[in-house]
């Protein structure tokens, strides 16, 4: 160590700063953002690792967090034994694997899996070393203390008194907190407050000062920092979210650096107090951190087994799509009803049900924000809701203003005094009066909730019609309409009635409600976007201009916005938005088919939902305040198909596939802008969803939010599991597990495109970040052949190979 210190003494201070700053930057990028639960979206926790492969990321998690990011070895071994993971898939996966240290053959691979132990290969963190030495549970103590401060710092209105220093940076706020907090010293960290007081006001300078003592050779900084942030993963992910949204608005946010400095501070304090007992072990740990982290044989074997499992799923899909394929319908007949849904896997079940009712019903799939990147303000709210994919910055401002109510006094007295009453209920002193005056009325509330008779609605149908706030001239409106219709590959053959259905969940008392809403709408329900688009497409001026651009919408075509309630599979129509009157017969027919389709969809979903035997059981889930599994959300998602609906319409995909309508012939004329859009937006969003489910299933302790029965909503942004400590991000265990078995079987998403591979390659070449996802195995890519069957597999580096032998196992 001494040698190292001397070496570093020759490094000029400026270079040292750059070294540290570099390591900080790299580390921050490895942490994925986590949106607050008010409007959360699925996030790929491995988004920062797109340039390396799963086994390499697994090695990092093994060594730095002691967390496995594969299913347990027994899971794979069981599937290999039963043949669910087929031998030939294992062989292909093994052959594909690029690692030099990969197993020689299948028997060796199985052998490695058999010997895989759950024993962690984690490099001990400093707090763990201190625990060993002192016998006190320092990692948990720190988690607890960090949680108490962070919860109050990031609070968005959960506590009445939000502390004195919410205006400053997180580092400043923590300094104030830590200079006052007696807890660490009571628990044995003497001199903690003074130590904090002596640290510089600048977090990076503080990190430098800490490192001079903690890691004087400045080696392995990236690993050290990553380990440090993983120890406060939830809060770090929240800070990363702040940075993400700041970047979308061309700003920057340094909160995550503050958190890094804050957590290092704890290590520093432990080190200063317990140095004699932990110095040696910490030196060893540092030496380990300084070495590059390589995947172990175990990691590699797991990756191969996982890959083989996914190859098997793909074969299953290919079989399904190839089997029973009907001959193409005559294209010239005008359908009676068309309905566009979000690509969300939950729509697949409903669309199939709807199509089964009549040959005259057609459905489409498109990202549920319907191409409108809006920032919406509802009512008098001062909050803007970004109802668009989180990858994009909003481009349009919209709002919905309520009209004047009939009796303003009464409606304001009942509807607008919520906040004052909340204050009286939760404030000191006044809560005593509240309890005695109002407490008895809670009998009624409890009866209502226990009987489940509170009103269940996913959306307020009476809510005022949304309008654009951004000034749009006719040309701009037409631009939007054209772009959206082309992106939907929906430029001709319009039916008389076209439903545009956004979707939203309908659940009660569920902190993760927004996770069940539309991800493409930024964790909101999709009603606003659907209503805006329907209105735009019903606009005569827009239609008039569209004709000049080659899109001729017949005069009798009406676009009707709708909201698909994914919990109960009911659909709400916004027919009252229409300027032109919808005739009653058509409306009755529409209501009839959506009711029938809803019943069919529920019958199919019933089998998968625990405790649901009757149709009414599913409806009751929406109002049951004790329901932890109201619906399965996107659990089970495995595939993404972008092709004409005819390619998949005949196959029951069990709500496992995203379905995007795409017609490459039409796209080719313009140079494949739609293909580019699909690969860069919906596919990436879908990959985030699939990897979120993957991570929450395989690593629930780190990337899942734990047990819903223990959730303790904190700060209005997230949940604790239990008393406090870590902010728990990701999906609850109840979202991926039925209690007896996993409902989501972890698989990376398989994207199936109907497009020429040259065109696909061109898009990948243009977008290296998207290409990285495919090249490093975070997504699989298959292409349909001219016959409409899956024919080609992307093999990385813009190379393609034939999918081996469409197996004749199924009768074709």
């Amino acid at each position, binding site marked *: 160590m001494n040698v190292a210190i001397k070496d570093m003494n020759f490094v000029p201070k400026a270079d040292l700063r750059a070294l540290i700053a570099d390591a900080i930057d790299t580390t921050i990028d490895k942490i994925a953002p986590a949106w607050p639960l008010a409007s959360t979206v699925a996030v790929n926790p491995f988004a920062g690792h797109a340039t390396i492969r799963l086994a390499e990321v697994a090695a990092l998690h093994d060594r730095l967090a002691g967390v496995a990011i594969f299913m347990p070895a027994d899971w794979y071994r069981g599937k290999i034994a039963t043949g669910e993971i087929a031998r030939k898939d294992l062989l292909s996966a093994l052959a594909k694997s690029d690692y030099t240290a990969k197993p020689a053959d299948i028997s060796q691979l199985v052998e490695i899996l058999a010997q895989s132990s759950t024993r962690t290969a984690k490099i001990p963190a400093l707090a763990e070393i201190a625990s060993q030495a002192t016998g006190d549970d320092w990692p948990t103590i720190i988690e607890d203390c960090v949680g108490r401060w962070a919860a109050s710092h990031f609070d968005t209105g959960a506590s009445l008194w939000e502390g004195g220093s919410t205006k400053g940076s997180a580092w400043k706020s923590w300094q104030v907190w830590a200079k006052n907090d007696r807890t660490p010293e009571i628990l044995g960290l003497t001199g903690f407050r003074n130590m904090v007081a002596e640290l510089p006001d600048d977090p990076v300078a503080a990190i430098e000062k800490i490192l001079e003592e903690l890691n004087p050779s400045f080696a392995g900084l990236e690993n050290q920092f990553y380990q440090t942030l993983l120890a406060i993963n939830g809060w770090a992910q929240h800070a990363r979210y702040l940075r993400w949204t700041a970047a979308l608005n061309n700003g920057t946010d340094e909160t995550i650096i503050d958190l890094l400095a804050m957590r290092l501070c704890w290590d520093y304090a432990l080190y200063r107090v317990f140095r004699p007992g932990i110095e040696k072990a910490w030196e060893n740990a540092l030496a380990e951190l300084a070495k590059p982290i390589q995947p172990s044989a175990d990691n590699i074997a797991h990756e191969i087994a996982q890959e083989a499992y996914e190859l098997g799923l793909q074969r299953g899909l290919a079989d399904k799509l190839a089997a029973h394929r009907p001959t193409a319908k005559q294209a010239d007949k005008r359908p009676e009803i068309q309905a566009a849904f979000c690509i969300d896997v939950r729509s697949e079940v409903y669309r199939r049900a709807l199509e089964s009712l009549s040959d005259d019903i057609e459905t489409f799939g498109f990202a549920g924000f319907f191409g409108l990147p809006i920032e919406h303000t509802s009512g008098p709210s001062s909050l803007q809701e970004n109802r668009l994919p989180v990858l994009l910055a909003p481009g349009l401002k919209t709002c919905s203003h309520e009209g004047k109510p009939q009796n303003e006094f009464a409606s304001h007295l009942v509807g607008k005094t919520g906040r*004052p009453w909340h204050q009286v209920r939760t404030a000191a*002193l006044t809560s005593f009066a509240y309890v005695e005056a109002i407490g008895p009325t*809670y009998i009624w509330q409890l009866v209502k*909730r*226990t009987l489940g008779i509170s009103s269940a609605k996913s959306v307020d149908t009476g809510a005022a019609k949304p309008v654009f706030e951004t000034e749009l001239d006719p040309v701009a409106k037409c631009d939007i309409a054209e772009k959206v219709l082309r992106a939907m590959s929906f430029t001709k053959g319009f039916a008389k009635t076209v439903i545009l259905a956004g979707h939203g969940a309908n659940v009660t008392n569920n902190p993760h409600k927004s996770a069940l809403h539309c991800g493409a709408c930024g964790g909101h329900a999709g009603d606003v976007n659907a209503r805006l688009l329907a209105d735009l497409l019903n606009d005569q001026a827009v239609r008039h201009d569209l004709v000049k651009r080659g899109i001729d919408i017949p005069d009798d075509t009406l676009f009707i916005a709708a909201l698909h309630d994914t919990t109960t599979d009911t659909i709400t129509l916004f027919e009252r938005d229409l300027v032109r009157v919808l005739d009653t017969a058509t409306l009755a027919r529409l209501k009839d088919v959506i009711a029938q389709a809803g019943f069919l969809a529920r019958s199919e979903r019933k089998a998968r939902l625990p405790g649901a035997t009757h149709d009414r059981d599913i409806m009751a889930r929406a109002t049951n305040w004790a329901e932890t599994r109201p619906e399965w959300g996107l659990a089970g998602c495995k595939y993404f198909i972008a092709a004409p609906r005819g390619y998949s319409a005949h196959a029951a995909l069990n709500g496992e596939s995203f379905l995007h309508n795409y017609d490459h012939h039409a796209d080719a004329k313009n140079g494949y802008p739609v293909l580019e859009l699909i690969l860069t937006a919906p596919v990436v969003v879908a990959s985030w969803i699939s990897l979120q489910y993957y991570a929450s299933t395989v690593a629930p302790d780190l990337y899942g939010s734990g047990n819903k029965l223990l959730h303790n909503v904190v700060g209005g942004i997230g949940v604790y599991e239990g008393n406090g400590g870590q902010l728990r991000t990701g999906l609850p265990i109840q979202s991926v597990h039925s209690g007896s078995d996993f409902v989501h079987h972890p698989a990376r998403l398989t994207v199936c495109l109907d497009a020429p591979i040259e065109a696909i390659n061109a898009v990948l070449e243009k977008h290296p970040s998207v290409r990285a996802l495919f090249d490093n195995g975070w997504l699989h890519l298959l292409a349909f052949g001219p016959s409409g069957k899956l024919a080609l597999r992307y093999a990385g580096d813009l190379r393609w190979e034939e999918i081996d032998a469409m197996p004749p196992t199924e009768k074709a």
Partner: protein
Amino acid sequence: MFLVAALPILITICLACSGLIGFLGVKDLTRSAERAVKGVSIAALMLAVAAAVAFTITGETRLDWTGTGFGSQLDLVSVTMLNLVAFLAWVILTYALSYLRGEARRGEFIGHMGLTLASVSALVQSTNLVQLALFWIFTSLLLHKLLLFYAERPAAKRAQRKKFVIARIGDIAMITGIFLTYRHFGSLDITEIAQTIRAGHVEGGTGWIVGLFAIAAIMKSAQFPTHGWIIEVMETPTPVSALLHAGIVNAGGFLLIRLSDLVVTSPTVMTVLALIGLFTAVFGSAVMITQPAVKTRLAWSTISQMGFMILQCGLGLFALALLHLVAHSLYKAYAFLSSGGTIEKIHGLRKAGPRENIRPGLLIGSFVLGIAIWAVTGALFGETMTSPAVMALSVVVIFAANQLLSAVLSESTISQRMIIGLVTSLGISVCYFGVHALTSHIGIPYFPTWSGSMVTLWVLSLMVIASFVSLGLFQSYLLSGHQPADWLAGFYVHLANGFYLNAVIDRYAGTWRITGNGTKLSGEKS
């Protein structure tokens, strides 16, 4: 008559059945078992309602469990408590059946829950002190099982250890108290003891007895400084928290109310109780407003509300304490069970449009109006005049009215703010005094009152007013939207940490010592 007297014990049997059904279904609670659990809990509730109706018609009665000396009391207190317990049992059991679906040990959970509820129902109908103590301890031990439902969670164990020690100290105090009672009165029958006291056959010397029961009550109802455990027991499914905060924690207050005739014989102990309750109420609610995690905030709220209830007992306002107990239970059960909706609720509050800062003049004006509303409605219902203690406690109405008014005035989206503000603040005031008037009307003849010197009562009342006004003004300052002063930042940290009481206990109890080697986290079955 016998049938009426048997209603309480039937309620207990029904609730016990719900537990037994749970245990029978340990492996797999079938749909019909679920229905059976709901069925017996509804039966229990209907029996409780029947008991209430019968009580209003026939008045007090009791059933002796032949040969045991134990029995079932049917009077105002037990009827109220039985209805509360049976109602909560129905709500919480129904909730738990859904909530724990898919959980491997659901049957066991329902089993323990049902037995706990049965035990509480047996506790509240006790005619005999030994019977009361027996079910008191039995309830605590069953709760112990529920709090350790996820026994593998280290945090659950840490909190449970604190709770266990406190509960056993309370048990010892109670048992000793019972022993001394027997020596003093020669009887363990609660009614008999009360009658002896009412007949005036006691010449002092009850201080120790009342003191010991008071200690048991304080331990049970999480009063300062023994409150630490209750803010750390969120490591178990939400229905347990609801049961604990809405049901079991009340037992301290129930004990004092049940033994009110005995309690009033020692004004000294009552004074101490009032002071502890007052301090806990103020301290607990001040900490509460700093808490960003909903269940933790609710736990601090429980501490303070229990403090308020103990304060009422200490001031000899037993009927109001019973009201507070019931009202708080209903409110808190709902608050815990619906705590999952907090995200939506807070988001809704944030969406409610901008808020305006209120001019100091208006702030003072709303305060004056608050006093006016309090004075008028209080006088209207004739309550403020009855006793200095009642008047002192009703000071909370001034602040509630004032705060509602000023909060409504700061809402920018409300039209006719002044009128709406006045209507709401008048509303809460009328509700408060109205409910009080009703409670007093029913309860006054039933309960004894403060029997110490009026001077002491006045001093206590003035202390209550002084504490409440200081807390109220401090809070108004915080809520006025002005940036708090620097020194407050430090005070905030101390407050948010509950003045480190748990940290100190942890340190000396060795709570943070590692027991096993390097096992942590994971509450999941895999």
